């Protein structure tokens, strides 16, 4: 059994080659302390991200799915170092991030950009969208004229004609247009990895499709790698090459997208997939796939964190935490479940 702790030794000579994953994350961990009152006892922690390890291949999209509170967004913020992890290591294209002999944090951040869900809150209301897009590169040492020229061409690329939009302020744009500005701004640094944290969740369906198309075009144009975080399984299926399912701060299943969507091995993944409403009135859902709400991530129970909602729970699930292990012979499909050996349905 491959344990979650084991890491592939990285050959730094291979740096830059196509086989080298662009980002390797090892045992990332973040606990937030809970303060509940003046006389509260200490020692309560929200286990937001608990031993999460994964890697993203160059030019691919890794989709991260899960319900609210499962640690998707915290994982994204930890990777971008918007918050500092309690422990864990990251390797960016062969270089350790922010460690001796590795890549400096400032350099790393140039290579990594993020697009958030709330398009309005993530733009400075006092800057025109041209200024916003050019701001970052000037901070990183690009001349003003060059940064503005680049900003205008980026705005053009994301579908906002500069002569019409460049001097507008964020409040003068619609949600879809603002999200295009956020994408243009992220691309201004020539990043190699873009984290899209629920980037299309707040958009209307017809606008969402436009933005998804734009993201796909930009990805192939600029050889980008995406970390695509979403709770919408349709969108994740459309965008991703690989999918990682999280539950209460842990990775419960990981694998190629088609494999996960057709042969999910974790009971939670299967439940999530069957919770998608069908578009056919003749095939309405008859029974909810899961009972109850996602439990509280404060001091979660010993053993498998899914135990209280799992329809197949066994004694061992209540005492021993399952480790990620390959499903059968498919080496790139891993699952953290004691019932791993049972064959997945709809083979």
């Amino acid at each position, binding site marked *: 059994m491959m344990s979650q702790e084991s890491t592939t030794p990285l050959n730094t000579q291979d740096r830059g080659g196509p086989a080298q994953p662009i980002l390797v994350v090892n045992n990332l961990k973040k606990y937030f302390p809970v303060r509940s009152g003046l006389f509260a006892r200490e020692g309560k922690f929200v286990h937001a991200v608990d031993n999460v390890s994964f890697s993203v291949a160059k030019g691919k999209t890794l989709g991260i799915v899960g319900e609210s509170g499962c640690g998707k967004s915290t994982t994204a913020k930890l990777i971008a170092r918007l918050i500092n992890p309690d422990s864990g290591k990251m390797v960016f294209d062969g270089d350790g991030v922010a460690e001796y002999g590795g890549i400096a944090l400032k350099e790393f951040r140039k290579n990594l950009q993020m697009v958030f869900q709330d398009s309005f809150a993530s733009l400075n209301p006092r800057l025109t969208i041209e200024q916003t897009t050019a701001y970052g590169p000037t901070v990183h040492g690009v001349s003003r004229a060059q940064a503005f020229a680049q900003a205008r061409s980026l705005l053009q690329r994301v579908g906002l004609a500069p002569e019409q939009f460049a001097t507008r302020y964020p409040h003068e744009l619609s949600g879809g247009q603002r999200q295009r500005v956020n994408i243009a701004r992220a691309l201004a640094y020539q990043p190699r990895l873009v984290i899209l944290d629920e980037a299309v969740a707040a958009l*209307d369906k*017809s*606008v969402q*499709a436009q933005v998804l*198309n734009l993201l796909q075009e930009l990805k192939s144009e600029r050889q980008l790698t995406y970390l695509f975080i979403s709770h919408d399984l349709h969108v994740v299926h459309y965008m991703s090459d690989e999918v990682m399912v999280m539950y209460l701060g842990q990775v419960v299943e990981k694998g190629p997208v088609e494999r996960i969507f057709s042969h999910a091995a974790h009971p939670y993944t299967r439940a999530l997939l069957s*919770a998608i*409403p069908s578009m056919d009135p003749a095939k309405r859902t008859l029974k*909810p796939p*899961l009972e109850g709400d996602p439990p509280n991530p404060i001091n979660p129970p010993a053993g498998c964190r899914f135990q209280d909602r799992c329809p197949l729970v066994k004694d061992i699930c209540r005492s021993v935490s399952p480790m990620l292990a390959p499903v059968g012979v498919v080496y790139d499909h891993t699952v953290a479940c004691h019932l791993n050996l049972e064959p997945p349905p709809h083979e």
Partner: protein
Amino acid sequence: MSNALLQVKDLHVQFNGQRKAQALSGLNFEVAAGEVLTLLGESGSGKSVTLRTLLRLHPEKNTLIKGEIIFDGQDILSLNPKAINQYRGRKVSMIFQEPGLAFDPVYTIGQQLTEVLRAHEQLDASAAQIRALDMLERVQIPQARKRFNAYPHELSGGMRQRAMIALALVCKPQLLLADEPTTALDASVQIQILLLLRELQKETGMSVIFVTHDIGAAVEVSDRIAVMYAGRIVEIGKAVDIVSKPLHPYTQGLLASTVRHENRGSPLVTITGSPPNLAHLPKGCSFAPRCLRAQVNCLSEQPELASTDSTSFACWYPNS
């Protein structure tokens, strides 16, 4: 139709606050007893405004309402304040998107349920408590007796939405207005709430107007679907017809741009542009600026809802 529980005729709603907005422009629809109608549309299409207008929740000072709302033979827009209080909650009640904001945080769930009951029915405290507890059990809240004395913040999101449904249904209304009741919930909880609503609707025989932007959720619960765009219904018909053979270009675009499994690997079909500004609605068909089939007359003449065998639609150049 004479057996309609609710008739909305040529309803116009205009907000005249700091900014003007024509939220509804000529809305016509009916809801039969025991029917589930979904209003489907994007933000700004007027779906939530419709529900709020049905309960007259908009401040009268800066809202201009024209048209007719007939509920069970009564003209709602002419009711006096006392009658409207009897109508709200007793005959028609509403559940909101964010149950955390709809409850009063300083009273327990039980106090709020019994308050509604005693305001509308001649009940003493203990009888009201029995009815309230029974209602909590019917919305499948585990340990109902314990939750009865809980404050709203002590319940999880899904549990609060169940309590909200209990609060709306405790006086056995004839019509339930559900304003995006599952949008704020996780997928696994969303389907639980949708199934619960469907079950309660069958059990009580009430009518439901369900508002959502999610076609999947609409298909799960509704008998008929009305697609809204810029304050008008552009297409209305049986759920199966709307999903399988839509005729209006907006409905077709909305369905085509919904991400499905088959789309993987190819670009999505999109509707170009964005919804119109409600302060300056275009003349003629409001969808015309985004429509690929638009002709000259679409820009000047407003199409009316015309019915066919399957759906009714408002378009000059429908396409089957």
